[in-house]
């Protein structure tokens, strides 16, 4: 339950889109994607998520959510956990 409280409005569209992208990139089931929590580790935690896969992930986020992610915005913190990435993408969507 703690992860639902950590992502307090986890049912929103950005969260759903991001989970779908993660599901597509990692080739995991919808159930596993739904079980990803704010503190689930991404880059540096999942061996299959290498730099090329992250590059693909970011490009897909740009395409599906109609945002542009600059290279200097990409850092370890935003990529380290699902919560970090979601927070970054939400801020980008709000700014756009």
């Amino acid at each position, binding site marked *: 339950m703690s992860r639902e409280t950590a992502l307090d409005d986890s049912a929103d569209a950005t969260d759903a889109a991001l989970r779908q992208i993660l599901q597509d*990139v990692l080739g995991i089931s919808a159930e596993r994607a739904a079980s990803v929590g704010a503190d689930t580790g991404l880059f540096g935690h*999942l061996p299959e998520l*290498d730099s090329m896969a992250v590059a693909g992930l970011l490009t897909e986020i740009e395409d599906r959510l109609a945002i542009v992610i600059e290279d200097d915005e990409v850092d*370890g913190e935003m990529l380290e956990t699902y919560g970090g990435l979601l927070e970054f993408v939400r801020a980008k969507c709000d700014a756009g």
Partner: protein
Amino acid sequence: MIAGWTSPSGEEFALTFDRDRTKRVLVLPAWFDESNKVRRLTVEVMRRLDGAGVDTILPDLPGCNESEIPLETQTIASWRAAAQAAADEFSATHVLAIRAGAILAPDLPGWRYATVNGSQVLRAMLRARTIAAREAGREETRDGLLETGRREGLELAGYRLGAEMIGELETAEPTDLPQQRKIAHADIGGAALWLRAEPDHDAAQADALAAILSMELLA
């Protein structure tokens, strides 16, 4: 089977399902990192077309797969010439171009599946390199890398690309050939395999793509 063919830059191999049938599809693969991720789908589509009575030929692009030519010497122009040479040598009647493969497609009837242009390919690889550099504690920028790349070539995602190739990638677009029909990934369904962190396969996607081609080829 594996067949030999001659590109303008030397001898190359091709994976073929060749039984001298009348419909012969030249398959132009996805590029670089994507080529590994989409290779099984590509070959599974070929296997299905073989079952449907259609020959297919998947040439190695010079500098890729079994090719002994250094990739660094290759350009989009040399790859286009190679694709044309393969089409001629194998007497292809059609072409199936996958992803960036559409940039090389000779003027034959056929299909382009989930096309991307050169700048999209380059952008993804530059991004991967800047992310890897940052992880290793080095600071590299896309603009800085591009500048170096245009001058002396660049290694991206493990592929050593020459300066001319880098420059060409920035603007390369699939040529507009009206006899080639676009197939969007949405027409196939499922999660795009080139996005997958590890190479994977989806039989339903191979079925769908092969069904589109065979219905139109055998109509």
